[in-house]
């Protein structure tokens, strides 16, 4: 299993994702430079967190034009696994690989805190190691993570089961109080219709070791790794 981690100028979760993949998961790691239009044979491409190109215009608005993104789109079209985390989710929305947009948090402030997420799909490569409606504890760190989509898009997402995780309380109840950023329908992560492109605001790479406060993030990394094994076996 080879994970590719894209590095835009201004990306900072690249090293954290790399650390988890290489040091915790023990999988193969390949950094992918934004100027290189080459995914170097990766099985899963991660678009990590950060402020790509400074995000001074609009989050992800410039990153979508990077040479590497053309290859990421092609890869996604072929069914390759693409995983956008935080800024990566924003880039995927800007690139049109996922619907909707991430706007400023309802509080108008940056939020770095732990959140609870209820997992609504476990049939995906990204979540196969999670239990049905499992509540994961994963931190967020963003100023613009407020998921927004027009009503038609929202109902399509809901009908097709494309909402993968929602902010919830520790008991799994999806409440206003548990919503850290004002996201519509408490949406924390969505997947495309085909199920191979996931975008999520929370940071699984920040909670893959007990000393960092929890290991729920590792379940997602392990899911991806296991999905590759399945492909090999089948």
């Amino acid at each position: 299993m080879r994970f590719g981690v894209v590095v835009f100028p201004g990306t900072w979760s690249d090293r954290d994702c790399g650390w988890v993949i290489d040091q915790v998961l023990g999988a193969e790691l390949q950094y992918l430079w934004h100027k290189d239009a080459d995914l170097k044979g990766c099985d899963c491409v991660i678009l990590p967190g950060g402020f790509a190109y400074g995000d001074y215009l609009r989050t992800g608005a410039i990153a979508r034009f990077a040479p590497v993104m053309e290859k990421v789109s092609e890869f996604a079209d072929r069914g390759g696994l693409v995983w956008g985390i935080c800024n990566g989710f924003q880039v995927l929305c800007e690139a049109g690989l996922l619907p909707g947009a991430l706007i400023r948090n309802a509080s108008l402030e940056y939020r770095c805190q732990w959140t609870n997420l209820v997992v609504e799909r476990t049939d995906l490569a990204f979540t196969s190691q999670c239990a049905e409606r499992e509540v994961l504890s994963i931190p967020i760190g963003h100023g613009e993570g407020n998921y927004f989509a027009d009503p038609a898009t929202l109902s399509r997402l809901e009908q097709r089961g494309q909402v993968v995780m929602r902010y919830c309380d520790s008991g799994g109840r999806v409440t206003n109080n548990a919503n850290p950023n004002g996201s519509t329908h408490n949406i924390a992560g969505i997947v495309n219709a085909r199920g191979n492109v996931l975008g999520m605001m929370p940071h699984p790479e920040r909670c893959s070791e007990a000393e960092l406060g929890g290991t729920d993030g590792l379940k997602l990394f392990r899911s991806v790794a296991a999905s590759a094994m399945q492909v090999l076996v089948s």
Partner: protein
Amino acid sequence: MVDERRLREVALTPEEYRAIVEELKRAPNEVELGMLGVLWSEHCSYKSSKALLRRLPSTGSAVIQGPGENAGAVNIGEGWAAVFKIESHNHPSAIEPYQGAATGVGGIIRDVIAMGARPIALLDSLRFGPQPASSHHVEGVVAGIGGYGNCIGIPTVGGEVYFDDCYANNPLVNAMCVGLVRVDRLMRARAEGTGNSLMLVGADTGRDGIHGASFASLELDETSSERRPAVQVGNPFLEKCLLEACMDLAHTDAVVAIQDLGAAGLTSSVAECAARVNGAGARIDVARVPRRERGMSPYHVMLSESQERMLVVVERGREAEVEAIFEAWDLTSAVIGHVTDDGHLTVVDGSAPVARLPISLLTDGAPPRRLVGVAAEQPPGLDIDALPPLVDPGASLLRLLASPNLSSRRGIFRRYDHMVGDATVIPPGGDAAMLRVKGTRLGLAVTTDCNSRYCHLDPHLGAQLAVAEAARNIIATGAHPLAVTDCLNFANPDRPEVYWEMEETIAGLAHACRALDVPVVSGNVSLYNDSSGTSAIYPTPVVGMVGLIDDYAKRLGAGLRAEGDFVLLIGSSHNDLGGSEYLKVEHDVVAGRPPALDLARERAIHRLVLAAADNGLLHSAHDCAEGGMLVALAECCLLGGIGVRCPAIRPEAPLRMDAAFFGESPSRFIVSLPSRAMPELQSLARRHHVEISLLGLAGGETIEFEGQFRLALADIRQAWEGDIF
């Protein structure tokens, strides 16, 4: 002789001007005058504080770089060095809070990068006037710190925020950065090697921030807002690219040195780099400096404080290698001159001469100011017997926890990314934060501390208490203190009582740092923190401290961990109400003497807590500080989400009830441990001659002192977390 008006513009005195003419044996030209003005400013030259700063201990077995470089460095073992420094950005933050704070963060990060280290943590020590009048300062500064730190991807893990009338017009913003570098990769900003190239990298040079250093060396007045152009604008994205490119420089050995461009821009960075090498000089061609705008004169180029720039000294002939590294990050780099051996800074504009000054005159020529200190008027005494007795400790606790100086800081630190880097093993909110050193078991504990009310009441003692409390913050995590970086904030030293405060403060710091064996490896002095003579800040010597634990698995948090644990007070309590939060909040009095401090005793208690932590006896440890025992105990409960049940406190005379609950005697900790560990702790305590006393048992969802008060943890949390921020 230039006119006085021009001298005032460059913040030089007529005496200083005469010294310049005497040394040069000619009058300086306009550019030279500007260059000398910024480098001789208090901010750059330390002309009022230099003599005092020499008193601070700066050596120790772990120290590998003391003061005089971009940052200090200590050896933490396994081939790693911790690099750190704290610096003020008070004046810019007073005028333009967001950019002032943001560029303060950006500047301190570059200091750490210049040492070849990767920054791993930021801390911010903040002081504001009372809310709500200060809210535009608070909001701007917090947003600016977050705006810069969050974007660049360095976790902001700690610091402090205090409110007091004395900061109403002069908020303090002190930013600290900690980095890691392999010991054999530690860089020094020395312009070695005649003929080596000087490369300017990063942002283009604009007209922003001209005379920022001089501005920082004046009192604020009603015209200060007109100096807004002297405040720079930060670009954290650019600095992120600069950071990564500088880290990539480690792949080449073509780089001799890296130097941050901070206050006084190109002038100071080139002069300082050259000054560190005997006889070295530099020749700069301003025509080769990439510019942001047209029409800039050599004066502008030499004095610009445009952010996100670095000076790199490169081996002659290898410039292309370095250029390629910066090019990969889409950063501009330009060779703007070279190292010489003539001991002068020569500036040309193409073929036209612009300036030529001896390096030693620039960096060391400012005549030390001989200031006289006169003891300040003794602050009001405290007649403790006249205080009304404590009526309801529970009600007092709620009021104290809801007060601006003691309430939860979560509203602030949740706006800072404190997790990026995957290294934060103790998050903000407790005593010290801790970062693991990836690839090892080492943990670095980091904190800042200063109770300036104590320093106001007794600067000598207050400074010692600041060092002791910073050390207790470190000890409470199970780490041992390694070294200090200090940010010394004072009012106008021309006033004899302020200079006296400086003398006393620095003497106190020196005494405590020696006694606790924590050398001062870097720091910064910020003077003139007063406004038109009306309000002066309390002396505020912020102590940034770094500590080390050999295995972070042994780290301790402040919060209670298990129901049924014994909760103990380590150390003894006295009638220490002078300068306390209790006195301020409950009686609206700032008076008396700060608590007495016995540094030998302090050390004994540190040894006991560290031994207990190292032996795995403890489940938690928390420093008793502002608000005293009961506030500390409540914090243990709130952070752990576990209540406590205690027998009534019956203090033995002469100890008063209010002092037992809320007195601020130093050298105390609250610890929790399983009952089975008690015998071993008791014998350790006897061996270290330290008093320990059982407060109660952890458990439940209330804090109760039998027959005295009982409060639900939820209500206490409500008071503590309130909505101050």
